[in-house]
C-alpha cells in the first residue's frame, strides 16, 4: 500500500503527513520531559525548605558538559546541512554531513560515559556525626570500610559540596550542628577526622562500620540531586541513541530511496532532523540546570 502525502502537501492541512506526525510526537515528548523537569522544580523547591540543606552546584564536570553542549549544537547544524545537501541533490555532501552528525552523537555518548563512570567510581561515606567522607576505592573489610580519600585541594571542595548536599536531608542529626560540620571538609587536617575514622600509613582511611549510616558511589541513590541527574540525563542519552538509529538508517540505507524518490528522502531527513533538534533543545535546558545553576 502506498503511504499518501509523503512528498506533496495535503490540500486541507498544507503539510505532508509526516510533518504533522513528528510534531505530534514531539508534543508528547515535551510532556514526557516536562514531567521530569517539573519533578526537578519540585525537588529543588523542596530542598530549600530543609534548614542547612544547599542544593549541590558545580559538582558535575563543567568542561565536559560544555564540550558536550558544543558537540550537540554542532550536530544540530550538520544534520540541517545534510538536509540542505539533499535538497540540492548533492549526495556526497549529504553523506559527509550526516556522517559528521553521527560522529558527534557518538562523541556525546562517549563523553557522557566517562562522566557517568567517574561518578560510579567516586564514593561517599555518610557518618553518623553528619560528615561525609568522599574518595575512591571503597572496600568492606570485616567491621570496617577502607577508602582512599580525595586529594586535598579540589577533593576537599568536593567533599564540602557533597557534605552540604547531604546534610540535614539524608542524615538524621540536628541540622544546626551539620551546618557547622559541613564547613569542615573531610581531610582538611589530619587530626580532624570524625570518631571511628583512622588514617592508615598509606593514606587510606579505615572507617568503623558502626559509625557509618550508609556508603555508596555517586549513583542515583547518593542523594536527591544525583537521582534527578541520572534520570534526566539517562532519558536524554536514550533519546540520543534513538536519534542515532534513525539518522544511521538514512546514512546507511538512504541510497535505496534516493534512487527512487530523492525528495521523499529529503523529507525523511527533515523529520529525523526535527527529532534531533528536539534532543539538542532538551540538552540546552539540562546543561545549565544540572551543571551550572
Amino acid at each position, binding site marked *: 500500500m502506498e503511504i499518501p502525502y509523503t512528498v506533496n502537501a495535503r490540500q486541507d492541512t498544507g503539510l505532508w503527513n509526516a510533518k504533522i506526525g513528528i510534531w505530534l510526537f514531539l508534543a508528547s515528548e515535551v510532556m514526557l520531559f516536562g514531567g521530569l523537569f517539573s519533578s526537578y*522544580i519540585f525537588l529543588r523547591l523542596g530542598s530549600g525548605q530543609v534548614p542547612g540543606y544547599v542544593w549541590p552546584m558545580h559538582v558535575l564536570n563543567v568542561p565536559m558538559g560544555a564540550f558536550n553542549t558544543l558537540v550537540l549544537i554542532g550536530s544540530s547544524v550538520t544534520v540541517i546541512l545534510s538536509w540542505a545537501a539533499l535538497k*540540492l541533490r548533492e549526495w556526497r555532501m549529504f553523506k559527509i554531513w550526516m556522517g559528521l552528525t553521527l560522529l558527534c552523537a557518538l562523541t556525546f555518548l562517549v563523553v557522557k560515559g566517562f562522566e557517568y563512570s567517574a561518578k560510579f567510581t567516586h564514593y561517599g561515606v555518610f557518618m553518623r556525626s553528619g560528615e561525609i567522607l568522599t574518595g575512591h576505592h571503597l572496600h568492606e573489610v570485616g567491621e570496617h570500610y577502607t577508602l582512599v580519600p580525595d586529594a586535598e585541594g579540589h577533593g576537599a571542595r568536593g567533599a564540602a559540596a557533597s557534605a552540604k548536599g547531604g546534610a540535614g536531608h539524608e542524615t538524621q542529626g540536628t541540622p544546626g550542628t551539620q551546618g557547622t560540620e559541613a564547613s569542615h571538609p573531610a581531610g582538611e587536617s589530619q587530626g580532624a577526622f570524625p570518631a571511628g575514622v583512622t588514617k592508615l600509613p598509606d593514606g587510606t582511611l579505615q572507617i568503623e562500620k558502626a559509625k557509618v549510616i550508609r556508603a555508596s558511589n555517586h549513583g542515583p541513590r547518593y542523594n536527591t540531586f544525583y537521582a534527578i541527574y541520572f534520570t534526566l540525563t539517562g532519558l536524554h542519552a536514550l533519546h540520543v541513541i534513538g536519534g542515532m538509529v534513525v539518522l544511521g538508517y538514512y546514512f546507511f540505507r538512504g541510497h535505496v530511496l534516493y534512487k527512487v524518490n530523492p525528495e521523499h528522502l529529503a523529507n525523511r531527513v527533515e523529520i529525523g532532523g526535527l527529532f534531533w533538534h528536539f534532543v539538542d533543545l532538551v540538552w540546552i535546558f539540562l546543561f545549565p540546570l544540572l551543571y551550572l545553576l
Partner: protein
Amino acid sequence: MAHGPEEIRKHVRFYIGIFAALLVLTAITVGLSYIHIGPEGDNRGNMVVGMLIAAFKAGLVGAFFMHLSSERPLIYRILIFTFIFVIGLFLLFVASFHDNIPPLF
C-alpha cells in the same frame, strides 16, 4: 514549502550564523554561572538569567533549525496546546508545593 537552490544556499549561511550565536550564548551561560547575581544566599537571580538565556537559545533552535519561523498554522496550533499543557504542568507542581494541606487527623 518550495525551496529553490539559491534560497537553500542562502539558508545554509544563515544556519552557520545561528550556530555561532548558540556557541556564544553557551559561553555566556557558563561564565555567568560563576558570578553571583542578586542578594547573598539567594540563587534566584542566576536561575532567572540562566533560564532566560536557555529559553532564547531554544527559541533560536526552534525558529530556525526547526523551521518554525515559517511553518503552517496547523503546527502552531499543535504547539500552542503543548505549551499551555506543559506550563500548566509546571504550575501544578509549584502550586502543590505552596499549598500546605493541613493534616487530616
